[in-house]
């Protein structure tokens, strides 16, 4: 072929790609007529949201809708950002009492090497149920032991587990002991409080030791890489997988509960120069100022539980987020579940029932978790440029009676059918 032919071919190929790309990404969706609650910024009584290329192209009261746009009539509905569950077992548990279907708890104490994403069952029946209640993203975390493994932030839509990944790893999960002398909390079943066996102080010493080992391990590896005569250190799995944490690349999420232990954990995080998130912190209200000063955000554990310490009061678990929020600590709510993941908004509402400002409660399931996990540019609010994770509802999404009408993830409308609706439809046919 002549040189000219080659150039022509090249142009055609490029143009084809360009054109097909154009037609692939040309679709625009317009959600029209809804009351818009962007979470960041003022609410709009009636407005329009334009979605393009999976992102929010525009939001406003008088937005002109381009021709050819798919229009979603949302009159009488509300538009919210999709909710984010800050600690869930979605995809790692199917039937909690049947061990064969449970993958969130590895055996052993130190497991920085396990990755939740590698066990994530993308077609778990619990994911569509949560999604159909307006939850569009979740942190899926391993649990158990001291270092439980690496959690992953996923969007609740995708044909494979890898397609669902938003951020991997999201954090290294570490667990401190529960509150000594705490009551069993029977009935809640959230499993968020570890046995009060080990002393947090000893645990911190052990972790520091591991971190130091990891640093030296890396130093030695690097030095040996440059110097052939120097022996490589024996492969150390724990050190290897702790390095990103030690170097500040991966944040740690520390599950910590008693006030003394929270203080000790704050100290530990400062000394080791870690980027940290705390989970649980049931006595965080006692040390709220310390948390605020240290700028450590707190994921609230399940409110479907009994207060661990009787003397702290029957409403201690509910007041905890209220007090911390008032003290300026950034909080986020979590379902701490797979089977009850859809209940995320109701934990937030429960805290609001006990004094949490309703707007703060909403933020704690949208923008605050986005900020905590470093994905605030992508999600957590309805703002131009963010991913179009949008929920249309017939009422306040934190209310139990509200019906979710439509859910968009990455600008695509999601299928809201789920295990519940499938079985219901099947047996409706009986009559």
């Amino acid at each position, binding site marked *: 072929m002549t040189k000219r032919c080659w150039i022509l071919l090249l142009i055609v190929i490029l143009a084809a790609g360009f054109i097909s790309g154009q037609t692939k990404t040309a679709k625009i969706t317009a959600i029209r007529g809804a009351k818009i609650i962007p979470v960041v910024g003022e609410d709009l009584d009636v407005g329009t949201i334009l979605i393009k290329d999976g992102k929010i192209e525009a939001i406003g009261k008088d937005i002109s809708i381009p021709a050819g746009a798919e229009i979603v009539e949302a009159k009488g509905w509300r538009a919210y950002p999709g909710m984010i569950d800050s600690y869930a077992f979605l995809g790692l548990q199917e039937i909690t*009492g049947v061990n064969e279907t449970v993958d969130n708890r590895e055996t052993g104490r130190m497991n920085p090497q396990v990755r939740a994403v590698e066990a994530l069952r993308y077609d778990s029946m619990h994911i569509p149920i949560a999604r159909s209640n307006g939850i569009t993203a979740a942190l899926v975390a391993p649990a158990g032991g001291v270092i439980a493994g690496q959690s992953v932030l996923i969007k609740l839509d995708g044909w494979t587990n890898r397609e669902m990944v938003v951020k991997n790893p999201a954090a290294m999960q570490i667990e401190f002991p529960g509150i000594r002398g705490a009551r069993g909390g029977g009935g809640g079943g959230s499993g968020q409080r570890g046995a009060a066996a080990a002393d947090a102080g000893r645990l911190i010493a052990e972790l520091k030791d591991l971190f130091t080992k990891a640093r030296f391990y890396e130093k030695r590896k690097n030095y040996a890489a440059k110097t052939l005569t120097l022996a490589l250190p024996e492969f150390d799995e724990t050190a290897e997988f702790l390095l990103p944490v030690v170097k500040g690349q991966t944040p740690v999420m520390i599950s910590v509960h008693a006030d003394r232990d929270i203080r000790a954990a704050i100290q530990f995080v400062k000394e080791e120069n870690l980027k940290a998130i705390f989970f649980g912190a049931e006595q965080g209200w006692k040390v709220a100022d310390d948390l605020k000063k240290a700028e450590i955000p707190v994921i609230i554990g399940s409110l479907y539980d009994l207060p661990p310490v009787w003397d702290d*009061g029957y409403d201690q678990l509910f007041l905890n987020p209220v007090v911390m929020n008032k003290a300026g600590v950034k909080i986020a709510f979590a379902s701490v579940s797979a089977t009850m993941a859809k209940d995320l908004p109701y934990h937030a*509402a429960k805290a609001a*029932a006990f004094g949490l400002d309703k707007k703060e409660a909403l933020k704690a399931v949208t923008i605050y978790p986005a900020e905590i996990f470093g994905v605030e540019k992508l999600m957590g609010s309805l703002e131009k440029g963010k991913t179009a994770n949008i929920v249309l509802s017939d009422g306040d999404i934190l209310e*139990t009676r509200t019906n979710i009408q439509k859910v968009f993830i990455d600008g695509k409308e999601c299928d809201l059918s789920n*295990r*519940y609706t499938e079985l219901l439809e099947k047996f409706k046919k009986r009559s």
Partner: protein
Amino acid sequence: MKNPTIFLVFAAFVLAASFQPASAEGGNLLIKNGTILTVTQGIIAKGDILILNGIIRQIGENINPPAGVKVIEASGKFVLPGIIDSHTHIALAGTNEGSEAITPEADVGAVINADDTAILTALSGGVTMAHTMHGSANPIGGPNVVLKMKWGKPSEDLVVTEALRTLKFALGENVKQSSRTILPGGPPPRYPQTRMGVNAIMRREFLRAQNYMAAWDRYNKLKASKIPPKILLPPRRDLRLEVLADLLRGKMVARCHDYQATEALEFIGLAKEFGFKIAAFEHAWEAYKIADELAGEKIGISVFADSWAYKMEAAEGIAYDAGYCAKKGVLVSINSDSGERIRRLFNDASKTMKYGGLSENEALSLITINPAIQLGVDRIVGSLEVGKQADIAIFNEHPMSAYARCDMTIIDGDAYFDRAALLREREEAAKKAEVAKKGGRP
């Protein structure tokens, strides 16, 4: 001890709170200006309830307080019937006699534990009455008891004597001990280990009970006859079979823990075979599959809203179960079966508005009048009507709102939980602690 004063103050407060009702007014109260959700007779937007001697005497607007009657200001609040939890295991010293399969001689009414702090937990969630039961370790467990949550009162004062006498049955995984590991050298597995064995053992016991009743009938006839035989010894009095005989005679009703549709249908068959009444199926996660049968047989269900997928037989438990069955005419109650969930029963009931399309009042019925009917106490509680016992809860929001919180729980006209009083006590204790810390100087 670092500061004895704080300890004493705190201990005094805790001690006082620990076994006295929050306020003991002798059952005389006037609740004013609340939104009254009667459940059975509509809503009064701004109304009053007059209670004398623990009974609701008047419901209406602008009721004048009689002399000496304490007034409870409920303006901006919602007043509803005390919540009834129709399936719990609280306030008992033990819930299962698991060593044998059939144990109806074991009566939970004999082991009430009025010291159980779960009673306080229940009160904080607006619950005034609980049907506390055997667990599910046995095909035939034993009699249950209905209690009012009267913290601080002697145990006999908690028993609701008007309630139906109920007998706990259980089917499925728990009863056949499917999760138990058989250890070498340990005790052999307990019969029955299959669902068919469960039905067989129940049938066997009913037949034995019929035999027992026949033997006593014959003895009584002989004893009463004109010439009784010279040697006449009564049959052995068997506490176990006497309870079953009571069920067969209609003096008790069955409350049966079931998950799968098949096992429920077969139990209905057994009930027909031996002529006893099933008041309700417990949990009934597959009730939506047999809603017509349940409605037709007038058998109720007492279920969770959405706690599912914790074992195989709960894997098809859909959140629409309660709402769908209710719409089909089944008498549905929502229960907690948990000393924790009991304080958010109202949250669970509200979910049927979303999963099932129930109205606000229908959802509220699931935890008030419906369980009252199931337990046979609807003449005395379950709704706000003149003449009923004053079991009342006062919430800050409509109880079917996720933002709702119980602020006061009243039983027989006495407040057993009062959040405002609790907060005042905390403030005072905190103030006293501050003063004590500063060495007594203000």
